[in-house]
């Protein structure tokens, strides 16, 4: 997690944050009118970008996804939920690159069965982490039930990040590598992922937190009268808030353990 803050001392990484944010916002804005949940989310082919930016640019991609989502919100859906959208989209890019390195994968060369399967898994987990945090926050605010938002965002993020993200990263990696723009080629050695047993444990904690927070949260919400992909039931369910909150905090703890 140290690299998330120390990366700001590298001018190239600051530039990459701005470029990633601009690209993400530019791809989000045209689809703002195709609403899925009024005022909260819409059809998002741009959801392919956070995982790609995360794997290629690491923490710069994560900050870029967060800022890009906020800029996208400026064009029609700026509200209280935007704060959770900022953090959720940060996690959408942060979780994939942390897990990629913690489980022994080096550069994001997604060729071969093992690498493709890992890409798909981290795409799903990144989407779920994003859905968990945003659904938790928006449910706490009493705007939209957790079950509705959690299920919709998971689907809305997972499908583009796998279907569109996979060809994107295969095509972008060779050129980004050639231009020395991979984040592992820019930052200092002390900021690079070290791997090891502690990182793996942190990775497992992160995965467990995501699965617990979202799945247990959904089960609890469904038991409380909410419905998936539907607005039935009331938001602000205290048990759901606690479970999803534990999951969200667990993601940060797992991230901090991964060096």
């Amino acid at each position, binding site marked *: 997690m140290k690299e998330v803050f120390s990366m700001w001392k590298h001018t190239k990484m600051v*530039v990459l944050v701005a*470029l990633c944010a*601009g*690209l993400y916002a530019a791809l989000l*804005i045209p689809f703002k009118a195709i609403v899925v949940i*009024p005022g909260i989310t819409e059809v998002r082919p741009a959801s392919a970008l956070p995982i790609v930016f995360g794997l290629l640019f690491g923490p710069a991609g994560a900050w870029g996804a967060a800022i890009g989502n906020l800029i996208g919100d400026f064009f029609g859906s700026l509200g209280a939920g935007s704060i959770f959208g900022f953090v959720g989209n940060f996690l959408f890019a942060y979780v994939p690159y942390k897990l990629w390195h913690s489980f022994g994968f080096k550069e994001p060369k997604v060729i071969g069965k093992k690498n493709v399967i890992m890409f798909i898994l981290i795409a799903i987990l990144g989407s779920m982490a994003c859905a968990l945090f945003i659904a938790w926050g928006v449910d706490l605010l009493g705007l939209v039930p957790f079950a509705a938002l959690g299920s919709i965002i998971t689907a809305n993020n997972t499908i583009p990040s796998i279907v569109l993200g996979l060809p994107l990263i295969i095509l972008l990696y060779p050129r980004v590598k050639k231009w020395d723009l991979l984040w592992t080629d820019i930052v200092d050695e002390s900021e690079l992922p070290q791997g090891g047993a502690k990182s793996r444990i942190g990775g497992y904690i992160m995965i467990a937190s995501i699965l617990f927070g979202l799945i247990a949260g959904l089960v609890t919400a469904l038991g409380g009268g909410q419905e998936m992909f539907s*607005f039935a039931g009331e938001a602000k369910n205290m048990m759901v808030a606690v479970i999803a909150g534990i999951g969200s905090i667990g993601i940060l703890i797992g991230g901090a353990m991964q060096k």
Partner: protein
Amino acid sequence: MDMFLYLDKNTIVHRLDPRTKVILLFCSFVMALMFTNPYILSAIAAIIVIYGVMGKSLANLKRIRMILIMIFLLSLVLWSLSYKGGSTQLLGPITLEGILFGVATGIKFDAMIISGMVFLSSTKMEEISLGLVKMKVPYRGAFAFSTALRLVPMIVSTSYTIIQAQSSRGLDLKSGNIFSRIKKYIPLVIPTILSVIRNTNVFAMALESKGFGYSEERSNYLNIYLKKNDYVFLSLGVLLTIGCIFIRVVGIVN
């Protein structure tokens, strides 16, 4: 093509410090989120609209009217059909309480979006960036944010150029259903991303040649400071918010 909402006018709201406007934006969100009563929410929305009138920002309502209408109608329909706990049955699953909840939620979302629109209509990007720095956001973060904002129209323009180039080579983007049309855009995304990312090294060199990052403290051409009107607006905003919290906590209105 002007994608941004900023309206270059000289009004009392435009002259407010960006920090004041951020705090007022935050206060409007807090007030809107506290209630599910459509009458109270309408009153809050009316206050926001009056604020917008003072800033002559309501011209932008035309640009976002479709979003506001869609959000209101979708909220009304979705919540009317799915709201549970209503006792006044109207038609099938639809109850009066569900309709009122749908109306309240639609007004809530629209009020927050209009508040955001008034903020963006009356605040320049440079002021937002400087306001962030004055609120102790590190300069590099504020710089990345303001640069990203500036890049969005350039990236959209680049993608239009690429679309025209590919269309002239026979790519048909207008036919087919929405999914097949989205699929046709995929080959356009790669050159757009690459043409933007390619400039990273040159951009970084240009920044460093001008002393970017030399010092954590940076002087600015633009200066902002709180004036009498800022304190008046801040006081009003904070008092209104406290009043709403009091009404909500004491239980006078839900």
